[in-house]
């Protein structure tokens, strides 16, 4: 078995003053992995970032870097030189952007050509002669991000990199990050945004109250964590598939052999993998097919149903075929359709209700 790039064992970090505890019995990150850590505010994301970045000494437990246990301070400094961590708060050093690049590239033993490459990738040309105090938070963040990539670090940890950016820049930045990360580099991307997790994650770990509530491929995570995610992001269903074609912003994606159409949130090309997201109340169920303009209609097999807590008379129906998804319907519809496990019904979702993200 290949040794993991970073591993945590029996990790426990508590903060006396707030009573917050981060607890990770076991967690591994493979070399070259793109891991997304998803969690709400206060779930322990930033603590995990500081621990993985070897910036905070855990009170209990062990950290392994390429199979070697990290113990001495000297070891920490030498390993830390191979890890780059971007903090949640946008900060760069006082002085011009150019000087920042010089200082950090000296620190990171990076060469001029790499600096130039990053400057052009992140489009920093116009900012080079600006002082740190003249930059907006968003500009500071992009410079900070470019600095984080300097020196070809083995691990890159990004804590909410897209915060403080406008929507356009945010989408754009994810693409840039994926372009900047080399296949050999391990990326740990921390966010509270579901769409970013969908875009980036081949593996997603969900943090909740200081514990890793689930980890694995997006499909596995979203299936196993449906209730938790529902609490965080509302009643939604997430699907993964391959893009078949794109036309005028309308994307056709094949999910388990079923073709679904939705609105493209990113630039997509045929053959790329995509994540689809829709609200569970956008699903219409019927016993007969057709009769409406809805593009996406398919036969589905019921897995089960349950009343929605706190919403009188509304039920959540889960389906197991042709893929896992959920729908919200009223009690009367439930009775009218005689929903029960194994029942076959037709499900329809308007194409305009489905958002399609590029999945890297």
């Amino acid at each position, binding site marked *: 078995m290949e040794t993991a790039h970073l591993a945590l064992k029996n990790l426990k970090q508590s903060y006396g003053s707030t009573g917050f505890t981060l607890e990770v019995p076991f967690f591994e990150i493979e070399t070259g992995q793109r891991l997304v850590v998803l969690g709400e505010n206060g779930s322990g994301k930033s603590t995990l970032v500081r621990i993985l970045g070897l910036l905070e000494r855990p009170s209990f437990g062990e950290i392994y870097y390429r199979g070697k246990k990290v113990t001495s301070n000297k070891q920490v*400094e030498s390993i830390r030189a191979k890890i780059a*961590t*971007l903090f949640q708060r946008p900060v760069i050093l006082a002085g011009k952007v150019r000087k920042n690049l010089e200082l950090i590239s000296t620190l990171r033993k990076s060469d001029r050509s790499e600096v130039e490459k990053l400057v052009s990738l992140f489009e920093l040309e116009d900012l080079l002669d600006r*002082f740190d*105090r*003249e930059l907006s938070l968003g500009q500071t963040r992009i410079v900070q991000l470019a600095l984080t990539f300097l020196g070809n670090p083995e691990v890159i940890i990004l804590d909410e990199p897209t915060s403080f950016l406008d929507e356009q820049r945010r989408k754009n930045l994810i693409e840039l990050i994926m372009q900047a990360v080399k296949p050999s580099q391990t990326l740990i991307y921390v966010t509270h945004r579901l769409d970013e997790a969908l875009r980036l994650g081949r593996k997603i770990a969900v943090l909740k109250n200081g514990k890793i509530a689930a980890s694995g491929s997006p499909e596995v995570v979203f299936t196993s964590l449906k209730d938790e995610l529902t609490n965080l992001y509302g009643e939604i269903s997430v699907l993964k598939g391959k893009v078949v074609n794109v036309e005028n912003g309308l994307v056709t994606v094949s999910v388990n052999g079923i073709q679904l159409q939705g609105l493209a949130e990113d630039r997509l090309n045929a053959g790329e993998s995509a994540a689809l997201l829709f609200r569970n109340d956008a699903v219409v169920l019927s016993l007969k097919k057709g009769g409406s303009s809805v593009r996406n209609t398919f036969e589905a097999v019921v897995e089960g149903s349950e009343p929605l807590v706190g919403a009188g008379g509304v039920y959540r129906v889960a389906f197991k075929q042709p893929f896992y998804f959920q729908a919200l319907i009223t009690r009367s519809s439930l009775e009218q359709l005689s929903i029960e496990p194994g029942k076959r019904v037709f499900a329809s979702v308007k194409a305009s209700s489905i958002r399609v993200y590029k999945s890297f």
Partner: protein
Amino acid sequence: MASLFSILLQGRSDLDFLIYTFAKALKILLVLPSDISGIILLTLELSLLATFFSCLLGFPLAFYLYISTSRFKGVLVTLVNSGLAAPPVVVGLLVFLFLSRQGPLGELNLLYTPAAIVIAETLLGIPVVASLGYAALLSIPAEKLFQLLGWGATFKQALLKLAVEARSGLFAAVMAAFGAIISEVGAVLMVGGNIPEQTRVLTTAIVVETRMGRFERALALATILFVLTVVFNYFFTRAQSSRGDATWKQHIWR
């Protein structure tokens, strides 16, 4: 009317006295007798030395306070900050007791020497450097330290960079310490003894000259003291001036 006239007359004679003193002081400054130039040189030498030692010991203390997570840190910070307000005569008394013949360091025979002055002034300067230096470091967001480490800096490198960021505050600490040291009288008088040509510095000389009624000499010395402070601070202020202030600062609607 007559009384007003006499007051004005009286006032004029006071003014005459002042103008007369200033004129004589100016003459002294222009001639600069050797005893006064000796005092200036000694003052500069001792003050710069004491400022240097205060920085040498005060800045590490400031950095220690900044990175310390000890339970006793709060106490230590309070102590250092209180040191800012330590009455110089008390510090002078303590140094005197240590250096006096019966004191623990009596054998060194340092009392009434320039070294004794430097010791007392350094002790007064350390809390100024440490306290203001600590405050300057605190003004840099802790995230910057973390981010520097995140960019692969060693802890030492990160602290060094942080010091560069905090330099205007750190320079202010040096200026404040120098100001406190060069204007110090009480402790200097006690441990230095104000011996002419040996331990007489500008401040103690001003005291003596004033007591003896040689106001023009006192005024000349005071002017020199003031000029020295301004010159010293000028250089540090230049180094301190921060470029790259937010451009909108000049447009603040005040």
